[in-house]
C-alpha cells in the first residue's frame, strides 16, 4: 500500500453540545476516489471543511504524505495542494471560463502598464487544461452564466486542478445536475484519479453516481464513520442501509 495522501486520525469536532465529528479516521491515497456519504447532519460538511482548513478540529491528528500537519486556515490546505470545490461553485457568471479559471491569480505584465492581463497566455493554458480533461467543448470566451450546470461544474473542477493540486475535495458536485451531466462530471473525476490525484467526493446520489465513480465509500452517521465499502463489490442498497443505520457491519476495505 502506498503512503496515504491525507490521513485523519481520531478527528473530533463539537459545536456546543452537538458532536459533529466523533473520532473520525479516514485515509485517501493518491489515485483514489473516495466517496463520502451520510444523511443530513451526519458531519460530511464538517469533515470536508476540516480537510479544507476552514474548520479546526478539537482533537485528532492529520498527516499529509506521512508528515503531521496542521490546517489552521484554507491557505494552509491550499499550500499543501488541497483544493476544494464547494457546492455553490464560486463562479462569476459574467466572466468567461478563462477569467474564472484564473480569477485572483491572473497572469499580468509589468506594473508600469497597470498590470496588464496576459490574456492569450491564460487562454492557452486554459485550453491545455480543458483539453487534458477532455472538456474541449467548453467555450473559452462565453460568459459561464450562459453555460449549462454540467459545464459550470466542470469549470469549477478544472479551476481546482489548474495549479496542480494533490487532493481535490468535491462537495455535492452533482446535486443540481441531470443524469447525463452527472455522468460527465463522473468521467472527469475518474480522469483526475488516473492522473494520480486523490479525490474525495461528497454525494447524495448513491445509486447512479457514488457506486459508479468511487473506489471506496465511507459512510458517516452522527459524526462517526460507521462503514467503509469497496465500491465495486457493494450495492447502493447496502450503502443506504448503512447511512440510515440498517446493519452495523464494518467492511474495512483497506
Amino acid at each position, binding site marked *: 500500500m502506498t503512503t496515504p495522501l491525507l490521513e485523519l486520525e481520531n478527528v473530533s469536532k463539537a459545536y456546543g453540545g452537538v458532536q459533529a465529528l466523533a473520532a473520525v479516521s479516514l485515509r485517501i491515497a493518491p489515485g483514489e476516489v473516495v466517496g463520502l456519504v451520510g444523511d443530513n447532519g451526519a458531519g460530511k460538511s464538517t469533515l470536508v471543511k476540516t480537510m479544507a482548513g476552514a474548520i479546526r478540529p478539537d482533537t485528532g491528528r492529520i498527516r499529509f504524505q506521512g508528515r503531521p500537519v496542521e490546517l489552521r486556515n484554507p491557505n494552509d490546505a491550499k499550500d499543501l495542494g488541497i483544493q476544494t470545490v464547494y457546492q*455553490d*461553485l*464560486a*463562479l*462569476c*457568471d*459574467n*466572466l468567461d471560463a478563462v*477569467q474564472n479559471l484564473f*480569477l*485572483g*491569480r*491572473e497572469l*499580468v505584465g509589468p506594473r508600469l*502598464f*497597470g*498590470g*496588464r*492581463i*496576459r*490574456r*492569450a*497566455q491564460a*487562454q*492557452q493554458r486554459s*485550453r491545455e487544461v480543458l483539453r487534458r480533461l*477532455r472538456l*474541449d*467543448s467548453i467555450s473559452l470566451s*462565453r*460568459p459561464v*452564466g*450562459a*453555460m*449549462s*450546470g*454540467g*459545464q459550470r461544474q466542470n469549470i469549477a473542477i478544472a479551476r481546482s486542478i489548474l495549479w496542480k493540486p494533490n487532493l481535490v475535495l468535491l462537495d455535492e458536485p452533482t446535486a443540481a*445536475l*441531470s443524469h*447525463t*451531466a452527472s*455522468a*460527465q462530471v*463522473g*468521467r472527469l473525476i*475518474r480522469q483526475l484519479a488516473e492522473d494520480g490525484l486523490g479525490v474525495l467526493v461528497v454525494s447524495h446520489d448513491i445509486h447512479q453516481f457514488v457506486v*459508479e*465513480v468511487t473506489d471506496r465509500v465511507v459512510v458517516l452517521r452522527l459524526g462517526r464513520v460507521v462503514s467503509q465499502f469497496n465500491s465495486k463489490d457493494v450495492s447502493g442498497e447496502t450503502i443506504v442501509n448503512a447511512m440510515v443505520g440498517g446493519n452495523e457491519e464494518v467492511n474495512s476495505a483497506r
Partner: protein
Amino acid sequence: MSTVQTSVPPTESGRATPPAGRRARIVELLATDLRALPVVAGMLLLVVYFASQSDFFLSSRNLSNLLVQTVVTGTIALGLVFVLLLGEIDLSVAANSGVTSVLMAKLAVESGMNSALALVIAVALGAAIGCVIGFWATRFKVPSFVVTLGVGLVLNGLQLILLPTAGRYSLLGTGLEQIAGTFVTGPAIWVLVLVATAFVFGLRWTTHQRKVQHQIDSSMLRQVVLPTAVTAVAGAITVVVLNANEGVPTPVVIFAALLALASYTLNETRFGLHLYAVGGNADAALRAGVKVNRMKIAAFGIAGALAAIGGIIAASRILGVSVSSGGGIGGGALLLNAIAAAVIGGVSLFGGRGTASAALLGALVIGIVGNGLNLLGVSTDVQLLVTGALLVLAVTVDRTIERMTAASR
C-alpha cells in the same frame, strides 16, 4: 471504469447547447459584442430626426456646443460606471462636483491661490470624499445608497457654507475659465489624433501578437486593422467638423483622454477585471483572493475624482460657481442625467456589466435630446418627458435582450 469521452459535446436535455439557428446567435451577439448596437442605432435616429427638423443642428458651432454640454454629464457618468460595475451606487457625485468646484473657485478667487494648484486640490478632495464613502460603506456595512444620499446632502450644505453672501464666485481672470473656453486646433489636434490612433494600434497589435504566439485564433483585420482605422477615421471626422468652427473644445480632448484611460483600466488591467468579478459574484471574488473592500474604496475614489473634474469643467463653461453648481440641492438634473447616461449606455445597476464607453454613448443621447429639443423650441417639460421615456425604453430593450439570452440557455 467509464469510457473516455471524445470531442463531441454532450447535450444535457437540451441545456448544454443553445437552440440552434440564427436567432439565438443574433441574440447572443446582441448580449455580448454588439451590446451597444441598439443605443448607437437609437442615437443615429435621433441625429437624423433633429437634422431634418433644424438646419442648425448639424452645424459645426452647434455640435461643438453639444459636445461640451455632453462632457460634463459624461465625465460624471464615467466615474459612476466604476461604482455601478460593483453593484453599488453613488448618489453624491453631483454634490461632489458642486462642492469641489466651489472650493476651487474660493481658493483661486478669495485666497488668491495659484489656479492650477486650486484645481488639483479640488480633484484630490473629490477623490478623498469618494474614498471616505467607500470606507464607510465597507467598514460599517451600510448600503452605499444610504451613505451617498447622506453624504450628498452634507456636501450640499458645505457648498452653501463655502459660497460668499453674494452666492457666486466668478472665474473670470483666474485662468480657470480657459478650460472650457479654449479650443485645440492646428497641428496640435492632429498630433493628438495620431497619438490616439497609435494607442489603439499598440494595444491591438500586442494583443494580436500574443494570441498568435500562444496559438489562439486571432484575425489581423478584425483585431488590429479595423479598430485602428475606426479610431483614425472617427478622430479625423471629429476634427474636420469641429475645425470648421474654432477647433476641438479642450473639454472634449480631456474627456477623450479620461475615456481612453478608463477603457484601458476596465478592459486590460487586473483591477478592471476584478471590478467585474466583484459585481458578478462578490463572494466568489473574495474567496478567490480579490480584496473586495479595497476595490470598493478605490471605485468610489475614482467616481469622486471624475465628479470633481466634471464639476470643474461645468464651472469653467458657465464662468463661475453658485448655489446651482452640482445640479443644486440634491443633485437635481445633473445627478439624474449622469445615472441615466450610464444606464442608457448599457451599464447594469446590478453590477458586473457595462463599459466605459457607455458613459459617452448615454451622455451623447441625453445631450442630443436636450440640444435638439432646445433648437426646436420645445419647452423643458417636454424635454423631461422625452428623456425619461428614453431611459425606460433603453433599459427595457436591454432587459429584453438579457431575458432572451437567459431563456436560450
